[in-house]
């Protein structure tokens, strides 16, 4: 509607928690006081130098920030010759961007006087990051994970348990990320007095989408300077995979005012959008409410959530962060998808040309870069958020490429 007319300039929030018509707070009343408390705590923290200093210290001495950028010419040869620069969130402590958000939310948890932190996790990276922060800060921790995901990301289940977290395998529904979130919400509603729900992406009720974005914005702030320093100019396109959309919002946010920079989100195309087995929300979905926010949602004619599918557990979610919905409807960002086949090709290519093993989630962004690079040609410059490392995916990848020797397992 009128959003399209607003064009390329960043749109201020009309009312708190809304990105255009998306976002909001569709939750049981029982949670509203906790959301208000959280909103107040994070707003206070945002202007409190003590909080800023503590988080910066943690990022410098624990996370390993700033993360570096790496130019990948041998990979770029397969991207139409465009220059490709990777933002290396895979090198953060615990192996993905997720730690940026978690450390900040754990600090906020303590400031709110809560002693327990819970999380959902798909790929396990957010769960591992949460278990890590809980160990570091002495918080009790429970992580909810779909049963299907505990199987395909078994390594991360072990990591969480070793870090002292309780991991609950959720068997309801599709037994993936959305069901883990349902279970985490049930826990939260029951234990909200002592417990903070550390949502792992830019979804959920206000203030989560905005807050989680802000905690990841450091990715884009660093990357913008690093690319300018390395190449003397801004990239033509910034790419990131989009599950809930936190690594993408993190790298996009600082570039939103840079009108010449294309912001490209890559969703999970799964077995192809025609197959119905995918998580390409923007290619198929319509506005609806899930887990507290209005956004694009894979749903049937009655508003029942449809199951998503992806080879990567972290992108296997039927909705998407509301700010992405708004960036897409306003035309500021564009979204495409990569199928499992394309993803595994890009995954393998980065491994073999650059010696970097990406997470399967991040490999979606790489597949997108291969397309965008070809569209841009040799003068192009592409910045890709490499959101995580692929250790957790070795089992899936080895099976895909037929590299598992049954006898040695």
């Amino acid at each position: 509607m009128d959003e399209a007319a607003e064009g390329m300039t960043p749109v201020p929030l009309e009312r708190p928690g809304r990105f255009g018509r998306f976002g909001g707070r569709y939750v049981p009343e029982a949670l509203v006081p906790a959301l208000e408390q959280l909103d107040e705590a994070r707003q206070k923290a945002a202007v409190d130098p003590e909080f800023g200093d503590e988080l910066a210290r943690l990022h410098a001495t624990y996370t390993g920030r700033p993360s570096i950028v790496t130019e990948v010419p041998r990979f770029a040869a397969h991207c139409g010759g465009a220059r490709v620069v990777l933002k290396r969130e895979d090198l953060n402590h615990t192996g993905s961007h997720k730690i940026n958000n978690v450390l900040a939310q754990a600090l906020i948890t303590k400031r709110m006087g809560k002693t327990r932190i819970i999380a959902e996790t798909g790929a396990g990276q957010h769960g591992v990051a949460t278990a890590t922060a809980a160990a570091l800060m002495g918080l009790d921790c429970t992580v909810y994970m779909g049963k299907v995901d505990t199987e395909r990301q078994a390594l991360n289940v072990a990591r969480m348990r070793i870090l002292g977290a309780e991991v609950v395998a959720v068997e309801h529904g599709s037994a993936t990320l959305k069901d883990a979130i349902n279970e985490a919400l049930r826990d939260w509603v029951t234990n909200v007095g002592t417990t903070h729900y550390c949502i792992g992406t830019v979804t959920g009720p206000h203030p989560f989408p905005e807050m989680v974005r802000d905690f990841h914005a450091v990715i884009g702030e660093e990357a913008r300077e690093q690319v300018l320093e390395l190449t003397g100019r801004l990239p033509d396109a910034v790419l990131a995979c989009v599950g809930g959309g936190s690594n993408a919002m993190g790298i996009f946010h600082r570039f939103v005012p840079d009108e010449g920079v294309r912001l490209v989100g890559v969703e999970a195309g799964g077995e192809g959008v025609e197959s119905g087995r995918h998580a390409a929300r923007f290619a198929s979905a319509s506005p609806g409410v899930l887990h507290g926010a209005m956004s694009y949602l894979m749903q049937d004619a009655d508003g029942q959530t449809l199951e998503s599918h992806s080879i990567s557990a972290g992108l296997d979610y039927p909705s998407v962060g509301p700010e992405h919905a708004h960036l897409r409807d306003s035309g500021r960002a564009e979204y495409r998808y990569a199928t499992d086949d394309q993803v595994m090709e890009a995954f393998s290519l980065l491994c073999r040309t650059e010696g970097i093993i990406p997470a399967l989630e991040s490999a979606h962004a790489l597949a997108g870069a291969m397309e965008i690079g070809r569209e841009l040609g040799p003068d192009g410059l592409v910045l890709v958020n490499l959101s995580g490392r692929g250790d957790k995916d070795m089992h899936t990848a080895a099976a895909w490429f037929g590299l598992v020797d049954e006898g040695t397992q």
Partner: protein
Amino acid sequence: MSAVTTTAPGLADVFARCRAEGRAALVGYLPVGFPTVEASVAAMRVLVEGGCDVVEVGIPYSDPVIDGPVNQDAMVTALAGGARVDDVFAAVRAVRDAGAVPVAMTYWNPVLRRGVERFAADLAAAGGSGLITPDLVPDEAEDWLAASARHGLDRIFLVAPSSTPDRLEVVTTASSGFVYAASTMGVTGARTSVDSQARGLVEKVRAVCDLPVGIGLGVSTREQAAEIAAYADAVIVGSALVRTLGGEGELADRLEALRSLTEQLAAGVREGRA
């Protein structure tokens, strides 16, 4: 009940009658489609015959975040059996014809998907008196406030033990029919004792509005019903009914078990103020 009036009795009539009889109202919940659409409608009739004043006709939903395992499983069964939102309106009609006041209970997305206005029109046409919305707060309910007013439907929002005075004000101002007070922090499911927070919450709600207050979450026995009836205007029972309907054995036997549980609860709501 053969006297056909131009306007069917609504929630206000139920609470007026209960007040006159010196008792609390009994509100029973069942989801449509569990164990099948047909059986669920039969079960709702049993609730009415057994003494429910109000029946909450539940819309099964794929992601019921404020429901415990019993209701979750019932919803999974209902959806797997092909229950549709359309079936809800037929069930509402059946409850109305059986002589009780039907209200629908639904998570918000099925309403959004149908269109808030169309949903309200369909619910009113089926004889529904109102809608209980467990994951919609008045702050997000602009369309529903307008549509419910247009179609004469009551808006039953929830309050919880965590609700602050400000929130109680916001929620009760937007509410009509009655206020649904969650007895405890948590999800639906029968509990051995109903939290002591419940009484305090009823008092807090009464301090800010004149609406009847119903207590739900965790009620499963005649004794609990009586205990709550002593201080609340309605006793709301869900999971215990669902569990009984979903028990072992032939459907006919389970319906009988449902009938006797309902009768027990109906006795309970009449005992509390003795």
